[in-house]
C-alpha cells in the first residue's frame, strides 16, 4: 500500500459523472455519430465511470436553429449508449422551457435512467414538474443551478431547496461560465450542504475558462460535494469542462475513492476520444473573456459564427452579451448583439470618412 492510499483511508468517496457526450456535444456542434457514442460510452463504462450523460448540448429537444441541429437525434444516441454499456447508468439533461416531460418519457423509453434538470440559478421552480415526472418514471434525479456565480450562496441554497423538495436527489453548483474561483465554489457548496443536509447530495460542474476546473472540483469536494462532473480531454462548451481523466488521477493521488480505474480513464481519453475530435476547446481570448465576464459557455461557437457573418470580433460580442446578463438559452441574442456591433462599427467608419482632408 502506498502512502497516498494510506492517507486516503476513511476519506468519503466521490461519484464521477462524465458528460463528454452531452456538454462535449457543444464542442463538436452536436455532430456525434452512433459509432462515436458507442465507442466513448463503452470506454467510460469499462473504466468504471458510473454515470454517462448523453444528450444534445442544450438538453433534450435542443436540436434547433437556435442551438444547432443534431446530426443524429439525441434520443437515438441515448439508445446507442444504453446498448453499449454494461454497468453505467445513462443520464439525460433537460432544460425546462425547451425540453418537456414528453421528451423525458421518450428518453426513458430509450434507456435513460437518470434525469438532470437544469434551470438558471434563480429559476428552480420551473423544474418541479420535471422532477416529479422523472421520479414517477423511477429515474434517479439531479438538478443543475446554471450560472451559479450570479447568485449569492444563501440565495442559491434556497433554490436548491426548491429542487430537493420537488424530488431532486443531488443539486449541482454549475459554473456554466467557468467564472467561479475556489472561494466562490466553497461558499456556495457549503451553503447547499448546510441547507440540504441528508435530503439531497451536492454536486459540482466546472469549466476551464480560468483554468480552474480541477482545482474548483477539489474545493467543492472539500466543502462537501460528493458528485463531480467531467468530460474526457475537457471536451465541452467554451474553454471546455473539468477533464475527467485528470480529475480521477488527482482524486487517486489524494486517496479519495472514485471507483474509476485511472489507467482505463487515461486510455479512454487518449485512445478513444482524441482520434475522434478535430478541434479541442481551449483557453483562448474568447473563452477567457467568457470566464471573466461570466458568459454562458455554450455561446462560444455561436459567437464565432456571428463574428464571421457580421465582421465583428467574437470576444467583443461575448463581452457585450455578458454585460447584458443574458442567461443560458438566449443564443438568439448573440446575433442581435452582433448586428448592433456591426452597425456601430459601420457608423464609426463613416464618421472617419467624413473627416475633411
Amino acid at each position, binding site marked *: 500500500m502506498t502512502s497516498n492510499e494510506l492517507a486516503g483511508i476513511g476519506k468519503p468517496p466521490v461519484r464521477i459523472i462524465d458528460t463528454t457526450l452531452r456538454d462535449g456535444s457543444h464542442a463538436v456542434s452536436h455532430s456525434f455519430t452512433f459509432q462515436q457514442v458507442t465507442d466513448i460510452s463503452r470506454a467510460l463504462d469499462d473504466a468504471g465511470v458510473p454515470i454517462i450523460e448523453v444528450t444534445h448540448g442544450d438538453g433534450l*429537444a435542443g436540436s*434547433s*436553429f*437556435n442551438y*444547432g*441541429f443534431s*446530426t443524429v437525434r439525441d434520443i437515438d444516441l441515448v439508445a446507442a449508449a444504453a446498448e453499449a454499456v454494461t454497468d453505467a447508468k445513462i443520464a439525460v439533461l433537460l432544460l*425546462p*422551457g*425547451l425540453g*418537456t*416531460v*414528453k421528451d423525458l418519457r421518450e428518453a426513458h423509453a430509450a434507456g435513460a435512467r437518470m434525469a438532470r434538470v437544469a434551470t*438558471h440559478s*434563480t*429559476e428552480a*421552480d*420551473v423544474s*418541479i*414538474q420535471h422532477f416529479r415526472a422523472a421520479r414517477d418514471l423511477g429515474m434517479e434525479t439531479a438538478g443543475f443551478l446554471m450560472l451559479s456565480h450570479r447568485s449569492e450562496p444563501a440565495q442559491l441554497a434556497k433554490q436548491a431547496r426548491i429542487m430537493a423538495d420537488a424530488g431532486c436527489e443531488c443539486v449541482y453548483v454549475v459554473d456554466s461560465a467557468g467564472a467561479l474561483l475556489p472561494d466562490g465554489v466553497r461558499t456556495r457548496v457549503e451553503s447547499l450542504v448546510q441547507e440540504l443536509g441528508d435530503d439531497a447530495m451536492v454536486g459540482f460542474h466546472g469549466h476551464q475558462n480560468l483554468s480552474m476546473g480541477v482545482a474548483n472540483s477539489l474545493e467543492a469536494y472539500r466543502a462537501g460535494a460528493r458528485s463531480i462532473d467531467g468530460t474526457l480531454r475537457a471536451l465541452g462548451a467554451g474553454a471546455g469542462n473539468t477533464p475527467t481523466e485528470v480529475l480521477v488521477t488527482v482524486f487517486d493521488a489524494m486517496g479519495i475513492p472514485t471507483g474509476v480505474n485511472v489507467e482505463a480513464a487515461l486510455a479512454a481519453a487518449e485512445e478513444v476520444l482524441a482520434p475522434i475530435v478535430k478541434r479541442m476547446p481551449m483557453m483562448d481570448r474568447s473563452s477567457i473573456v467568457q470566464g471573466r465576464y461570466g458568459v454562458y459557455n455554450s455561446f462560444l461557437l455561436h459567437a464565432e459564427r456571428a463574428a464571421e*457573418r457580421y465582421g465583428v470580433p467574437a470576444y467583443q460580442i461575448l463581452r457585450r452579451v455578458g454585460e*447584458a*446578463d*443574458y*442567461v443560458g*438559452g*438566449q*443564443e*438568439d*441574442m448573440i*446575433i*442581435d448583439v452582433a*448586428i*448592433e456591433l456591426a452597425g456601430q462599427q459601420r457608423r464609426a467608419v463613416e464618421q472617419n470618412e467624413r473627416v475633411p482632408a
Partner: protein
Amino acid sequence: MDFRPRPIAAIVGPGNIGTDLLIKLQRSGALDVRYVVGVDPASDGLRRARDLGVEASAGGVDWLLEQEVLPDVVFEATSARAHEANAPRYRDAGIAAVDLTPAAVGPFVCPAVNLDDYLAAEGGTAPNINMITCGGQATIPIVASISGVTPVAYAEIVASISSRSAGPGTRANIDEFTETTSHAIQSVGGATRGKAIIILNPVEPPMVMRDTVFAAIGPDADRHAITESIHRMVAEVQQYVPGYRLKSEPQFEDPRPDWDGSGRVAVFLEVTGNGDYLPEWAGNLDIMTAAAARAGEQLALAWTLAKPAATNQKEQVVAK
C-alpha cells in the same frame, strides 16, 4: 351614427391581467364592462375594479350568471382548470368567451392573423376563442407573414421574458407554453412544423420582452417579398400593441447542408408594454391583454348581431 347599445362584457379573474385588461377595455370604450368577478373577497383586484367604477363580486361565475343582465362576452383570466369548468356554462348562457388561460377549449386566435375566421357564430352557439400564449401572440403573426409568401417547412420561436413577469401558473407548467405555442405555430402560423422555446431572465432592471422567429425557407424564396410582408404584419400588430417593433431588419441566411438545404430568415422583435396596469417591461403580459381586448371587442360586436334574440335574458337561462 351607430345607436346600438354597446355589448356588455365581464372579466372573470381579477388579477394583474384582469386589471390591465379592464383599463384597456375602458379606454377603448367599444364594450360596456359591467362586471369583474373573483372568488376572494379580500382581492385587491376587486377593489381596483370598484375604484374604476365596475361592479365587482367575489361570488365567482355563479354570481355572474345570476345577474339580471348577462354579459355578451366574458374574458377568462383565471386558470386552465377554471376555464374548463366555466366554458360550458358560458356557452349554455349564450355568452361568448375569450379565454386567456392555456385551457384552449376553443380555437387558437391571433387577432392579426385569423380572428375573422371565428367571428361568424356557427349554429347560434356562443363562440369561445383561445388567446394561445404570450410568445404565440408575439411571434405567430411573423410566422404567418412569412408562410403567406413562401412555404415554411419549419418555424422556431424563442421568447425571452423577465422572470418577474412569469407567474406561478406559467412556472408550474412551463411545458404547456412550449407545447401550445408549437401547435399554434403550425395551425395558425402556417408552418409545417413548429417549435417554441421560452427563457426566463432575472436581470434587474427587468428586461423588456424579446422574441426571435427563425423560419426555414426554400433556397429560391423571394427575400424582398418576405421582408415586405413582415413589415406589413408588424404594422398590423402595432394597431393593437403599440410597443411591438422589429429590433433589426429580417436577417437572411443562405441554405446550409445541416439545415437540409433550406435557407433561413431570422426576425428579432421587442415588445414593450403599454404600462396600463402592468409595467412596461412586461410586454409578454401586455400583448396578451391587448390581443384579448382586440379579439373580444370584435367578437362581442359580431355575436350580439348573430345570436338568437333574448339569449342574454336571465329567464331563458333559468329555464334550461
